């Protein structure tokens, strides 16, 4: 203790090394955790965790031309954990007319309204009147389809009860193998703006009844199946069960939970990697300790000789030098913990509100809220970093301390 006090500058600089190392590690751990948690919560808010999307074919084995049939839907509905199953037909890009007004829908889709609303309850929310019944000519229009020019305050394309005409591309046997058909529908309602809470954005869609589409297209196949599970935490198990009912590569199931977990894993790996890099600075501090300890031993050779002559054992001398190293580790560790957490809280405060997510990925709450990172105080990391600091100090002090303890007292006493 006495010796450390006397060499204040030297001790301070060595301790500084440890402080920097611990600050870096703790800062990264704390901020990194906070960032991960924020990301995860955003994804959980964003993705509809209760829904599975089933696509025909496999991305790896080539998207299959096979589609889905009622029998498939029936099979899936029998899987335990499945609350609702619904199939949809995708009708492609369409143009709509309402009197002299015209608009385009990116996707026209044919659904079973009752089932569909059960699967997407949060997204099927109406702007203005909502339909009390769905007839076989009902059309539901997405927000952006109804308000194509966001900037101008023009009147919407349609309101409830308006008759709109949709041009559909229908295949035929004779040349040229397709024709354009106009079909009229009655507007059941217009959906509120919702953005992209997952991979789809209903704002750009229009919806017509599945039965009607089947009549128009003269086929009973569907293009997509949506499944709502009763318990989102079971979604992976349910997906596996569904997959087992089909031949391999026949279907692909998109599971939000899996995706979130994968992203979280990646973030976690990145975080650990950064902390490992930060640890390098601690190693450098350790080398610094070895350096000054070696010098210290040399300077105190005579002193060690005296101590041994008085009756100090080798291990007493060893313990003496190691104790000094441990002290440096303790001081550096404690200060480093404070600066580390201080830095992470400070940075989080400074960064909050600075990073805005992109505009087209608004989440379930229509207003965009900026990225807020709350740094995490983790007890495990605190203890681990502290122990790591002390361990590094001991390990790097070991060599010089051992050299000190093994000095021959007679020679040491002669040392000038």
């Amino acid at each position: 203790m006495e010796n450390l006090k006397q060499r204040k500058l030297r001790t301070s600089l060595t301790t500084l090394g440890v402080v920097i190392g611990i600050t870096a590690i703790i800062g990264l751990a704390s901020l990194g955790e906070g960032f991960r948690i924020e990301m995860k919560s955003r994804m959980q808010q964003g993705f509809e965790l209760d829904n599975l999307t089933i696509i025909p074919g496999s991305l790896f084995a080539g998207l299959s031309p096979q589609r889905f049939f009622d029998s498939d839907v029936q099979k899936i509905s029998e899987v335990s954990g499945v609350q609702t199953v619904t199939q949809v037909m995708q009708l492609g890009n369409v143009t709509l007319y309402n009197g002299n007004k015209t608009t385009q829908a990116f996707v026209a889709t044919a659904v079973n309204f009752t089932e569909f609303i059960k699967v997407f309850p949060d997204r099927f929310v109406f702007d203005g009147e909502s339909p009390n019944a769905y007839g076989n000519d009902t059309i539901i229009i997405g927000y952006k389809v109804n308000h194509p020019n966001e900037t101008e305050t023009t009147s919407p394309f349609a309101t409830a009860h308006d008759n709109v005409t949709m041009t559909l591309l229908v295949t035929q046997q004779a040349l040229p193998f397709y024709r354009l058909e106009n079909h009229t529908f009655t507007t059941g309602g217009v959906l509120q703006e919702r953005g992209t809470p997952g991979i789809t954005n209903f704002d750009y869609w229009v919806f017509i009844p599945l039965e009607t589409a089947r009549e128009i297209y003269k086929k009973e196949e569907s293009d997509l199946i949506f499944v709502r599970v009763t318990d989102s935490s079971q979604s992976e198990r349910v997906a596996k069960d569904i997959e087992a009912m089909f031949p391999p590569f026949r279907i692909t199931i998109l599971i939000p939970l899996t995706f979130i977990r994968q992203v979280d894993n990646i973030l976690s790996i990145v975080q650990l990697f950064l902390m490992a890099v930060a640890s390098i600075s601690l190693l450098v501090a350790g080398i610094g300790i070895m350096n000054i300890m070696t010098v210290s031993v040399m300077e105190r050779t005579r002193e060690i000789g005296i101590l041994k002559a008085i009756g100090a054992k080798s291990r007493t001398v060893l313990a003496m030098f190691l104790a000094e190293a441990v002290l440096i580790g303790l001081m550096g560790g404690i200060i480093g913990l404070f600066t580390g957490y201080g830095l992470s809280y400070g940075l989080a405060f400074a960064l909050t509100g600075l990073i805005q997510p992109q505009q087209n990925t608004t989440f379930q709450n229509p207003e965009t809220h900026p990225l807020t990172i709350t740094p995490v105080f983790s007890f495990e990391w605190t203890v681990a970093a502290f122990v790591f600091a002390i361990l590094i100090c001991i390990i790097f002090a070991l060599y010089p301390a051992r050299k000190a303890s093994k000095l021959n007292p007679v020679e040491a006493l002669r040392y000038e």
Partner: protein
Amino acid sequence: MAAILGVQGVKKSYRMGRVAVPALCGVSFEVKNGEFLTIFGPSGSGKSTLLHLMGGLDRPDEGKILIDGVDILELSDSTLADLRLNKIGFVFQFFNLLPRLTALKNVELPLAIAGASEGETIERARQTLELVGLKARENHRPAELSGGEQQRVAIARALITNPKIILADEPTGNLDTKTGWEIVQLMKKLNGEKGQTLIVITHDPSIAEAADRIIYLRDGLVERVKEVSRGSQR
């Protein structure tokens, strides 16, 4: 009187590069419990080497060193260290105090190493400093003390564990004549009062004569032994 320390046929050489330089070539004698013995000889006679061996700071190449009947060659380093702590006290020519500690703390050192409690240590250190007449200077660092005062501190440090043997290597070598003489008188007084065996190495004949017995060493061998005619009380 029992022999507290025995030297039997001790030989020791040092390696200087490729040459082995013999320091002791076969030394044998006994030290009686409580006596004041000086080992007298010119520079290079092997006196310091002999002292180091007697104190267990080093081991002989050949022969035996018996302390209280135990051959130190048979002891481990750790046990030897304990021996030095409890049974032996060293006083050196160049004082060998720790420069960053006060006089009091320097004296406390052996007890601190032995693991004694703080309160007990300070008290005993004070008493021992008083014995050597330096109570007033207990908070001074060695740099603030004169040569004579430093040597007194060293003596106090050597005494604090109540060792059976005090080994002094040219204790007056770095002091002026008057101070040197005072130191020797102090040591002799303590020897008389406390009954510790005192072995002093010196090349100063006047100091040698202060002892009970003188061993004359030359070229690594005992030349002769002389009983000083002034009788000692033991």
